[in-house]
């Protein structure tokens, strides 16, 4: 019984220590929103990062068109302080709806709060449309200090305080 309690305490301490470090894997995904009424690129894009050692990340971008498309271009947009260790652009020929196109590369980057964006570009008729997905990297950004209250007419307000 005593040993179990000690184990729980150790696990909690470890969890607490790890909560301030960047998680080893992160991902973000953007799909054509069902509700959107602006012209939307017919493609889903996902970007995922996986820590490889202390200063490297493996970045994977996956694009899945929702209709047959004549070509796809995948591009990674990296923060200025990151160095790519491989290609950050890939081009794919005609792709059927539902087929997945993948690009994986490694980057060297420190733990500053930042983000990586994957862009999927494709032509629709003669217009090049695109969709992006952005994943946060590095230390999590501190949440702004806010205060919520009700205005006299019942409207709610969320105030960002200095």
């Amino acid at each position, binding site marked *: 019984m005593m040993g179990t309690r000690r184990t729980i305490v150790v696990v909690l301490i470890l969890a607490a220590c790890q909560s301030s470090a960047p998680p080893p894997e992160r991902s973000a995904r*953007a799909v*054509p*929103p*069902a*509700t*959107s*009424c*602006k*012209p*939307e*690129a*017919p493609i889903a894009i996902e970007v995922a990062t996986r820590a490889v050692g202390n200063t490297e990340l493996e970045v994977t971008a996956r694009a899945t068109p929702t209709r047959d498309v004549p070509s796809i271009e995948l*591009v990674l*947009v990296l923060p200025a302080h990151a160095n790519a260790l491989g290609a950050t652009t890939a081009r794919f020929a005609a792709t059927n709806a539902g087929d997945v196109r993948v690009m994986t590369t490694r980057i060297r980057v420190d733990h500053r709060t930042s983000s990586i*964006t994957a*862009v999927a*570009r494709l032509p*629709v*008729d*003669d*217009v*090049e*449309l*695109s*969709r*992006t997905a*952005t994943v946060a990297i590095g230390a999590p950004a501190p949440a*702004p200090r806010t*205060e*919520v*209250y009700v*205005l*006299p007419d019942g*409207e*709610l*307000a*969320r*105030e*960002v*305080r*200095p």
Partner: protein
Amino acid sequence: MTPRLRVTPTPDYGPPPEPRVRMPAFAMMRRLEIALVASLVASVACGGFETTTSPDDPQPDAPMNLCGDVTATGTCLGNELVRCVDNALATETCAAACITEGNTPRCIGPEVCSGVGPLGRCDGDVLWRCDGAPALTDCAAANQVCGYRDDIAGYACVDPASVGSHRVAGTITWEDRALAPGSLADPVAKPARGVMVAVVDDATNALLATVSAADDGSYVAHYTASGMVRIVTYSRSRSDARPARVRDTSGYLHAVGVAPFAAGARATVDIMVGATSTASGAWNALDNAVTAMDWLRAHGVATISPVYIYWQQATASGSYYQGANNELHLDGDDGFDDVVALHELGHYVQDEYSDSDNPGGAHDGSPADPRLAWGEGGATWFAIAVREQPYYIDWSTGGGWSVELEDRVHAASLTSAMSQNVSEWMVAEVMWDMTDPASGDADSVDGSASRVWNVLVGYLTSPARVDRGRAGLDLVEFLDGWFQHDGMMTCGPMRALVRDKYSFPYDFAGPAGACP
């Protein structure tokens, strides 16, 4: 210290004439009148019958001074600035009004109204209003102060006993990032036109005074308090002329406040909503709503319906408009996407002032149901007409994407029916060509936004509208409406535009009649 102004009201505010110097018959009569008075005054002062001369007397061959009391600095006479130039009166007709600042008169033009807005502005205790004509009132001359009366009257001269004991003023700005195809410019501070500003009790969050910023971002608030207070700006415009607000996806207004201070301790408090703030996109969305509503009023809409915009950073809801409750949702990465925001406001305009049978659903610009193409293309027309730039732009990291809508042609098929599926881009392109002038572009239609707008709020909402093409509202009815409003004089250039340039098989035989 604010310079004291003496104001001469303007009797009329028609199209602003160019400032000019003139000497018409009326002015000549006035010059003679003033000169006559001046000469009589001079003769009386000189004794009238004095025959001796002095060295100060003008020589017989010296030019006669016809200016009387009018100096080279000049004076305001109604809407005219009169100066003495080479011993003669020169009159400048002011574009808006003639004012005297200190002892110096000057003309002001209608551009002074660009920083005022529908609720006025206080410059010290001088009240600026632009309710049709620019008008300045020195409140202090009537022992009043310039302050905020309410959201209907806005800024006014008010009894100092009726306002709070403390006065705070300042400027609200936000950082815009100008949009262009493929780029978002560096942040530039802009006045937060019409935004709500409040003095808030720091202990209870009670609003002690609520005002609206003028169009130059300035505000003045009077309040009474004894504890700590803070100034807060909210993503809302309270004026009936611009009833818009921006909430986050949980339904909260965005608000940005400053550090609290003791009541009365600060007379000036400025707030700047930075481009990196989590609220920045809300101020951009609100500014787009203000722009759209001003455009509507400039095009004859008397009553502006409210719009409720929802935007929050890092959300992925898509961008869309819900007509049932005037809700406009903007995707998290559309915070600085002016064209997307105005496109969605275009749906609000269709919903409130025109018409659409848009069935909705996913679309990517390729040929689609003509009712969808009309709804989406019409909304895009509103965006590019307001911006006066023929580009649809959806920016995102990496540059996003854009469509040029003046030179590119997303043609239909002349061998198909009028009810064929068409591209929303083609609808926007045709409407843009009917908006821009004939010169300097690829089409010969000499159009204007007002003429297109007249069709949108006229024939398209009329019970006389005849359903042709695909069942429901589409480009065919809009073209029918063009000829209803403009007559058949544009048949030639419209045929060249619609059939030759865009290969759309419109029959030119709508309710207004048949083109030859």
